[in-house]
């Protein structure tokens, strides 16, 4: 009986996934390869393709590693130290996440020029380092927020016990803390890996013309050459690789022990000069890495013709030349899409999480893997897939306002799921039993216990969903969008498509506004759950 009801719950997320992801992608691949399966063989055996596949995998792995290294000091300090502005740090790390790549790339290039890093023998631009650094820059938030949030709730006592048994703080971390963090780490790193695996603009803009990944190749074949067969073959390769990773990750996750001792907040204030220096040092490392390019952005947004000025911001209130609407309207558009995308992500991700935690083995696994897949799928495949699939009758969503948040939510749902599931798993089962003995049916238990406790984590996931939508991730550039639906990132790119100092200034001002709005939205999300509960 419980089984069948969970299966009923699974219908909504499963149908969503089937309709907006599996069907479009399968349809496109069928269109490409249905008559030409040989392309798959060509792709699998072509030396150039194999090199590209290899590069894609290793750059994603290296990016993930670098992200971890760069995020480590901030993650540690956010989890373990109480200091003024701690919550703000958790908020600010998400800001880079939403910025258009072209803007960030510009800021990095300017920074490198100022530091003298692009002259002579040391060159960052158009090297693989630029790709790795940029991926780290964008993805630090995922690690800091998810792992840091989880870590901050981990009971200290097992480590204290290890210390009393003679372990140094490092040994205690390695032997006791790290194994307990493994689940959260794996969840975060898998998302970073998938983002790096399918990243597009960073590879093109920062990696230089010589670097190609599966994603950029799919774009090249599908868009520049309209060779859908090759693009579909590459998509299959991409999905197989992603699926393998996701399955591996799920398996590793499953081996992670279930309930950990959780506390409200393990962080303590730094006592003593050494501890304070550790706190300050960690913050400075993270701050310099994330902050330096953003400072350049800020500076550019406040400069007009070599002078400090607010003109760039002021002019956005009106209808800007070269934009069909005012900057303010673009912001409202962005927020509307983000609200819708976050709403869809909450419903789908929330139901999906319930099924993953309570459902039968089959649905639990299907949704656990399936809901993560869209992050690892080419935007081209999905975008074109939507165009040729959701095109009939009441499903003709190609030009609908809703297709934008729907496709964005595909990328946002995994964040909701990855933040809610660990919390639902951590709920003391006797609490559910207690509710049952008090007369709550399984459905009511889910509402009264899971939903109530998961709500905080849900709010965290929503923050990310918002950010993903604000940052225009996903396949939305492929579906037709009305010009009065222009969003902030698209407006920025539009402004940066024509020469002129004023236009660049306005683009930078819009970027700053986008950062600010993101920070506010994430801050509100964090406020909804004062304990910082949840993994993301």
């Amino acid at each position, binding site marked *: 009986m419980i089984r069948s009801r969970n299966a009923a719950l699974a219908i909504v997320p499963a149908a969503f996934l089937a309709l907006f992801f599996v069907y479009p992608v399968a349809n496109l691949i069928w269109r490409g390869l249905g008559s030409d399966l040989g392309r798959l063989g060509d792709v699998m055996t072509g030396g150039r393709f194999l090199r590209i596949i290899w590069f894609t995998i290793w750059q994603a792995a290296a990016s993930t590693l670098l992200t971890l290294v760069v995020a480590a000091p901030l993650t540690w300090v956010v989890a373990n130290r109480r200091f003024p502005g701690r919550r703000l740090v958790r908020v600010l790390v998400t800001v880079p996440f939403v910025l258009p790549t072209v803007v960030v790339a510009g800021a990095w290039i300017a920074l490198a020029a100022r530091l003298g890093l692009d002259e002579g023998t040391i060159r960052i631009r158009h090297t693989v380092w630029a790709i790795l650094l940029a991926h780290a820059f964008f993805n630090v938030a995922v690690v800091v927020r998810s792992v840091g949030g989880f870590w901050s709730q981990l009971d200290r006592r097992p480590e204290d016990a290890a210390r009393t048994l003679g372990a140094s703080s490092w040994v205690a971390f390695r032997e006791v803390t790290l194994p307990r963090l493994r689940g959260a780490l794996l969840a975060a790193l898998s998302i970073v890996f998938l983002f790096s695996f399918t990243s597009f603009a960073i590879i093109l803009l920062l990696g230089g*013309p*010589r670097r190609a990944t599966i994603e950029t190749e799919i774009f090249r074949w599908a*868009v520049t050459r309209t060779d859908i067969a090759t693009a579909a073959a590459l998509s299959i390769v991409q999905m197989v690789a992603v699926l393998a990773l996701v399955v591996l990750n799920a398996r590793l996750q499953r081996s992670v022990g279930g309930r950990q001792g959780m506390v409200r907040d393990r962080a303590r204030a730094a006592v003593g000069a050494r501890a304070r220096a550790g706190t300050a040092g960690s913050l400075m490392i993270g701050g310099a890495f994330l902050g330096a390019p953003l400072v350049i952005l800020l500076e550019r947004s406040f400069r007009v013709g070599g002078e400090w000025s607010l003109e760039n911001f002021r002019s956005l209130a009106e209808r800007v*030349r070269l934009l069909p609407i005012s900057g303010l309207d673009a912001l409202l558009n962005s927020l509307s899409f983000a609200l819708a995308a976050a709403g869809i992500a909450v419903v789908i991700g929330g139901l999906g999480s319930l099924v993953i935690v309570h459902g039968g083995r089959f649905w639990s696994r299907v949704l656990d893997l399936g809901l993560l897949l869209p992050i690892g799928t080419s935007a081209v495949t999905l975008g*074109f897939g939507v*165009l040729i699939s959701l095109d009939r009758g009441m499903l003709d969503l190609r030009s609908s306002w809703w297709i934008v948040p729907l496709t964005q939510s595909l990328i946002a749902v995994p964040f909701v799921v990855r933040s809610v599931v660990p919390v639902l798993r951590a709920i003391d089962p006797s609490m559910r039993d207690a509710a049952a003995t008090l007369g709550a049916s399984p459905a009511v238990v889910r509402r009264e216990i899971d939903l109530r406790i998961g709500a905080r984590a849900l709010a965290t996931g929503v923050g990310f969903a918002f950010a993903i939508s604000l940052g225009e991730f996903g396949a939305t550039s492929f579906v037709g*969008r009305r010009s009065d639906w222009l969003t902030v990132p698209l407006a920025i790119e539009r402004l*940066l498509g024509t*020469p*002129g100092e004023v236009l660049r200034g306005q683009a930078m001002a819009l970027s700053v506004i986008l950062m600010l709005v993101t920070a506010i939205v994430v801050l509100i999300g964090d406020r909804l759950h004062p304990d910082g509960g949840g993994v993301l």
Partner: protein
Amino acid sequence: MKTKLFVFAMLFALLAAACSGDDGASVRELGDDESSESASSGSASSGSGSASSSSESASSESASSESTSSASASEEAADEPEATDDVASDDDDGTVAPADDAESEEAADVDEAADVEECPTITLITHDSFFLSEGTLQAFSDETCISVEQLAGGDAGQLVSSAILTKDNPNADVLFGIDNTFLQRGLDADLFLPYASPALANIDPSLILDPENRVTPIDFGDVCANYWIEALPGDVPTSLDDLLDPVNEGQFVTQNPETSSPGFAFLLATIAKYGDDWEDFWQGLVDNGVTITAGWEDAYYGAFAGYGGPSSIVMSYASSPPAEVLFAAEPIDEPPTGVLFDSCYRQIEFAGILDGTEYPDAAAQLIDFMLGTTYQEDIPLNMFVYPVNPDAVLPPEFVEFGPLAENPLSLSPEEIEANREAWTERWVEIVLG
């Protein structure tokens, strides 16, 4: 706007329901079984009534999607008994192959169209850089009572590829933004219905590339190298060969033809100019330290001397100097940049009526309007290209600072399409090694 408000309302309700404290809402009789439980299971799963209704509709959509072909087709057939004749006659075309519902839909739509024939709404799909002043398309609607909905469908490449993919069931009536580098691909795919606008008579025949008039030229421009006058290390460059001059070593930045439309145009320019020797020219550029970026933005705003970059010569447009004047922070009399006219490649953008439109007549009227002076005069300052209609009055900045190349380079669309892959691959070998 209504949709937006609806979304806000719905989601606030949802969040409120999810986050609010308990209330008397869950009143339920003890011992009440299955019925009340399944009802509460709905709200438990989604947090509020509105959300569950939306998810219900999603699932019902999925259910119906499986049966669309049979159900909707039969329904429509029942509604429109005379439609069957149309289906039978349509079959003779042999174009629409698999889905029989498409035909009956078409038939139904023809009927529907008959009711509102005079004032239909048509859809114009464009690339993302398309932009007009407020009210320009409204002028068309006022004139003809045809409403136009404009959609942006990605960059020019995405636009053409999408159109080819959705050829059987296009999501627009008119496509604007296919240029001469992609034109042949669109023509080969039979995307467009022929239409010879009477306004074409007025237009420079060199801009009309398709003799069958499946596409109509709307605007054109030149992709040319620009230089930042103050940053030039030597004399002002006047010919393409000057880019190979050692004095300009490391000074030139252009874009990857695989990912950028001006980059591809420049490759075509060199092929048009040097013929088979284009490879040597590029080898020379590589030896002289050419920089390659992915797109126009990171070349112009990232590498160009005017914006803090190291390169004084950048691949851009003949219309870039007027933009520099128009969008200067402080008013200036002269653009800070100049154009290397010897490098210019002519880019022409076309509009076409998509085969499959329900409103070919309205679409044709839109094409006529796009060639008229109202529309044509709105082009330069919004898209920084030139109108094809010689009667259109150019803005003063264009007249003063934006002259076109006298002898722009060009290649035929057939030649481009036939060689695109070979050229770009050869380019990759030479330039990227």
